[in-house]
């Protein structure tokens, strides 16, 4: 379970570049729920995700994950609760380390790290079995450097890494935006599988209304740092992209002019 209460965040306060990104954002996600988040550029999607992961600290408001108040915790302190996959395929893994070393890092997420061997023999068996499910042939390349993999392969491995250890919340930050359409479809399919298999609570930010409606159980739209639309269940399953657009224009009383959202 995740609860965000009245989050505020302003970048460059008191300067001409002052930019209020989050303006009283509140959202509660029940356990096992897969929520998709949409919104135009500058709506606060990435800032919201970064606030949940601990990369930025909100000016005010509070954040609870699984009943724990994590508002003032650093990113590494709450890593045991939150797993994430970044938008940039290069960001989620270390290219200089081997595939198995990257997986071993994720194996210890949120746990203490001692002087015992990082890549244990028992881990290797697990890694092979998990990589085989990706059907990318990576199970035979455990020792290869991560940098040798394509963006799509790296994103697939990032997803796998995020699911190696149990987490209370999985954050997906436009994790298919940098991939070609075919690879993006593959990674999305993999996302659906991993989330449902592990019954994960997940929050996926996307730029595409199509993706937002086709995946997960609930769709939330952000606008000017607040939740302006929240659909789920029967209402959502009957919706199509034009309906979503109409609802948005109705709530905001203004026309949406972000091409990326319309075309996606």
């Amino acid at each position, binding site marked *: 379970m995740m609860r965000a209460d009245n989050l505020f965040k302003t970048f460059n306060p008191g300067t001409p570049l002052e930019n209020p990104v989050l303006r009283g954002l509140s959202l509660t996600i029940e356990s096992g729920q897969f929520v998709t988040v949409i919104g135009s550029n500058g709506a606060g999607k990435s800032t919201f995700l970064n606030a949940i992961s*601990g990369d930025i600290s909100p000016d005010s408001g509070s954040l609870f994950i699984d009943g724990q108040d994590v508002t003032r915790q650093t990113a590494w302190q709450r890593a045991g609760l939150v797993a994430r996959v970044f938008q940039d395929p290069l960001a*989620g893994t*270390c*290219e200089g380390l081997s595939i198995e070393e990257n997986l*071993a*890092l994720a194996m210890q997420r949120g746990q203490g790290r001692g002087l015992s*061997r*990082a890549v244990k023999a028992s881990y290797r068996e697990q890694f092979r079995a998990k990589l085989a499910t990706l059907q990318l042939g990576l199970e035979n390349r455990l020792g290869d450097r991560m940098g040798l993999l394509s963006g799509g392969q790296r994103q697939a491995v990032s997803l796998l890494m995020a699911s190696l250890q149990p987490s209370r919340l999985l954050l997906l930050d436009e994790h298919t935006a940098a991939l070609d359409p075919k690879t993006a479809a593959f990674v999305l399919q993999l996302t659906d599988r991993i989330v449902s298999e592990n019954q994960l609570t997940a929050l996926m930010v996307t730029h595409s209304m199509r993706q937002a409606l086709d995946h997960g159980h609930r769709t939330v739209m952000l606008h000017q740092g607040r939740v302006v639309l929240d659909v789920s269940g029967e209402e959502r399953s009957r919706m199509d992209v034009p309906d979503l657009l109409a609802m948005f224009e109705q709530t905001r009383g203004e026309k949406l002019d972000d091409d990326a959202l319309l075309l996606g």
Partner: protein
Amino acid sequence: MSLISLMGALEIGLIFALVALGVLISFRLLNFPDLTADGSFPLGGAVAAVLIAGGHDPWLACGLAAIAGAAAGWLTAWLNVRLGILQLLASILVMIALYSINLRIMGAPNIALIGLPTVFTPFVSTVNDNAWLIQPAVLAVIVVLAKLLLDAFFASEAGLALRATGANPRMARAQGISTDRMTLAGMALSNALIALAGALYVQTQGGADISMGIGTIVVGLAAVIIGETLLPPRSLWLVTLATVLGALLYRLLIALALNADFIGLQAQDLNLITAVLVGLALVLPKIKAKLRNKQGGRTA
């Protein structure tokens, strides 16, 4: 070049292999450009010299020198991590401060250790002079031991966390690694090795001198860079091996250049030779890659 001067070059090369391993940790693994070495190398020398001159066990002196170096590295990292001072600047501040601290520790600009017991004394024969052979041999054992211990550490959970900290700090934090703590620990380890090298250096040279740290970082970096051109960085144990070999090769090249009378180089040209060597080591891989591309183009 005589056998004695060859062994002399190896001896210094082995000492700088420890410096190079320290530089590898800061510059390459942690991605932290650290100039503390110019202060932590003489710091190790000063601590060891004072303790040995005071009649203490030379191994104890080496251990305390390493601890002093660790403190210096930790301080540089602390200035950067906690106070937000730029990495390079933080290390320069500590380096400058250490000059005064080293003078305080030594109490004089130099300390002589001639005739005093060192870590080499138990192995050196009193009958015939075998120090030229024994000193490099003892140093070789220490360097191999340090390399193997480092290899084991970097394959451990904590060691992997340290490497992730340098390679991709955001990812490391997302995996629950405190990149701040890792930077502090890694910088302490790096400068502990460099100070240990300083402690061994004063014992081979028969004394400590306040100016002995000048250019330490350049030599360490030169060894790392030469090592990188020697062996492919396929795994970390190869990288540490290449670094050790780089330090040895660097000192051999220097010795050759200084010994070759026909070139007419003298001891005061050392820094110029260093600059030329590092420049060559930086450019050679690019030339090699260019040649390979040309050949590839012809066969294709």
